[in-house]
């Protein structure tokens, strides 16, 4: 090894892309979908419709951000939909009972956090599989919200709360701004904090991480708590939009969230994932539905297109990983 090559390698070590190669791939996918729909529909690429897409994607993006942290740390959270439902009925019934809105919001976030803590503790301390624990949670949290409400939606959400979640902030719909802030927080956690490194280390090689002194149990629990709290945030956005809290809301949310994370580059084997990628993944799924609706494509075919996009994304992902 001569000095010249050493010098360039040292230089390489200092230089870092702000945007990974995998994120670039997701970005290309997003651009292609935008290009295709802009060509097919004159309405698609207009300011109001783009804002519309962001708003429609915001709930899935919110869930998917938490899901990404869980997947990166080597887990999976199937219980996000029911956690959202439970948080929604808690918030709604407190608001209806006259509890101040900030307190009701805190209670909903607390409910989400508790569910995540319960999932995480069973996985970290009882050593159960994340898939099985959250599959149990899926039924458990759904049952709790159904029992709590007697199966009926909670109506009568205060207009102030509805006005807040349906209003604009900085010229954008408030939910979009909220999710953008959450994405920024998640990005910072994953890329800039020890906890983020722990997520990737535990997901990449749990035993090596433990031997190197990573607090494995706390790391796993943190990921599930993030996921639970973000499910609650998504629930609050939906409650504000609909003006009611249905104990059956959030059905199959986990699947859309996993799809967004996977399209964005998260590996279900753990250890890999990208916040920027997940946000783009959620927007890809959102714009696909939006575009197909604009073109009056039937719901059945929309489902078909979603499936094709997910599988195609994974095929491209696997092909590029092998060659790279």
């Amino acid at each position, binding site marked *: *090894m001569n000095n010249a090559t050493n010098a360039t390698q040292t230089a*390489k070590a200092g230089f870092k892309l702000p945007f990974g190669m995998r994120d670039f791939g997701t970005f290309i996918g997003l651009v292609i979908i935008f290009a295709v729909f802009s060509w097919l529909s004159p309405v698609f690429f207009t300011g109001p419709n783009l804002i519309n897409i962001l708003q429609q994607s915001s709930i899935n993006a919110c869930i998917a951000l938490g899901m990404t942290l869980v997947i990166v740390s080597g887990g999976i959270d199937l219980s996000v939909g029911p956690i959202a439902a439970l948080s929604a009925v808690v918030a709604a019934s407190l608001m209806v009972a006259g509890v101040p809105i900030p307190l009701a919001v805190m209670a909903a976030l607390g409910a989400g956090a508790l569910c995540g803590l319960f999932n995480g503790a069973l996985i970290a301390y009882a050593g159960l599989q994340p898939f099985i624990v959250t599959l149990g949670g899926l039924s458990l949290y759904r049952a709790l919200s159904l029992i709590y409400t007697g199966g009926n939606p909670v109506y009568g959400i205060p207009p102030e709360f509805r006005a807040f979640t349906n209003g604009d902030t900085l010229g954008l719909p408030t939910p979009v701004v909220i999710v953008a802030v959450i994405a920024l927080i998640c990005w910072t956690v994953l890329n800039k*904090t*020890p906890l983020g490194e722990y997520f990737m280390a535990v997901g*990449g090689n749990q035993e*090596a991480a433990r*031997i190197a002194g*990573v*607090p494995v149990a706390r790391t796993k629990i943190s990921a599930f708590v993030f996921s639970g709290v973000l499910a609650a945030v998504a629930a609050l956005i939906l409650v504000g939009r609909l003006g009611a809290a249905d104990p059956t809301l959030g059905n199959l949310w986990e699947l859309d969230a996993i799809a967004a994370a996977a399209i964005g580059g998260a590996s279900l084997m753990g250890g890999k994932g990208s916040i920027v990628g997940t946000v783009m993944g959620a927007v890809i799924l959102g714009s696909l539905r939006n575009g197909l609706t604009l073109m009056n494509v039937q719901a059945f075919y929309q489902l078909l297109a979603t499936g094709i996009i997910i599988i195609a994304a994974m095929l491209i992902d696997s092909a590029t990983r092998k060659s790279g």
Partner: protein
Amino acid sequence: MPDSTTNSIIADPQNTSIDRLRLDGISKRFSGHVALNQVDLHVKPGEVHGLVGENGAGKSTLLNILSGVLSADSGNITIDGKVLNIKSPLQARTNGIAMIHQELQHVPELSVAQNMFLGRSITHMGGVLVNRKQQERVALEVLATLDPDINPSAPIRTLKVAQRQLIEIARALMEDAKVIAMDEPTSSLTPAEFQQLARLIEDLAGRGVSIIYVSHKMNEIFEVCTRATVLRDGQNIAVATLAETNAAGITASMVGRDLVEATHISHATKDPILEVTNLRRGKHVKDASFTLHRGEVLGIAGLVGAGRTELLRLIAGIDRPDAGTVHMHGKQVASNDPRAAISAGMGLLPEERKRDGIIRDRPVTSNVALPSFRLFSTLGLIRRKQIAATSLEILRDMDLRPLNIAKPIGTFSGGNQQKVIIGRWLAASADIMLFDEPTRGIDVGAKAEIYSLVEKLAAAGKAIIVVSSEMSELIRLADRVLVMSEGSITGELQGEKINEGAMLELAIASA
């Protein structure tokens, strides 16, 4: 499926003028980097041929081409004068080339016979059902000549590594292999098991099978091989007739320079830094007690399974001890808590680097900083620049190659991964380092580097424990050696008394 006949194996073993296997002018490039440049390898019938070279010299690439995993950019492979066009591992096998991998790939829950017939089952009922009885009969027949103790219907996980290797060899024999390539076959064998393997290799060679034997261990190469091909940087350096040369000669042509046999210098003080008292776990570790001093290199010798790794894991807090205490710097350290041991200044270099050491897909920097991210953070945010600077400083010192700390650690060779894990504990300012088989699977050049590193660390006042199965390594490095046998420390050797005979005697002693 053709019937197994032993005739084709011993086809004309006396005619040694014709090469059984010829690789001529093999070249291979990977994205601009030349891995092999016009490499030749000629093996006669019934010859045991060594293939040696440092990591990265191109041995694995050559074996992968031979076994059909990779295809060469140019060059020919001929067997018994017939030019082969190998495009897949299956084609290599049908042409009589068998590969015994370093890491054996078996399905642990399936039986010995099922593993042997994986992918080419003997069937009956019109090819629908697997004929297990017939498979087990054939397996028994083949295994009888190798190791009659192996039961073909036992699950493969119940077998020892040495026996699992025999399964692979048996499978190769069933397929009428003309050439068997063995990649580091002894990396998990005891010395006695190596002797068994050596006898088997001799026997196979007598039956006309050609063996390609890849190993870093010079004593093995000289014991089993007649000739050896030396590769360096993807080129043929020499084909040596081993009776006419010695280990130093081969090593010199491998690394391209003479390795100076350094003499041991002690930096040991009388200042105790680690005290282990009556540490016990099941039958693996029985009442181990000893003291380690600042600047000391303490070796732990013993046979595979003597409890050495288990002892290190107890000290490092990875496993829960049944009884006993560990004191560091005079203070008791909580047991079964790696974080407590690390914050008291301990660092473990695990034996199974891939399983217990590295986070494969993460960059070098993240692997270095893993135990110390909190120290490298301000207000909860990681100071990446400082981690990069520290990693670069430490790893440049250790001559990490290539010195690209942004690359995932999984892309580095074993020796370089080892440097990164050692660097991890330097960055964490550990002052007690536990090295479990630090040079396993590492080439000669990197080995010398690790040795001088251990010495440098001792000179800097670190206390070091080295567990090793290579006695020469302990003689070279240790100020003092503890020998373990069946979970107990059976003796302690110091200074002049550290030699192979004394260590072996204590290693087979029962406490």
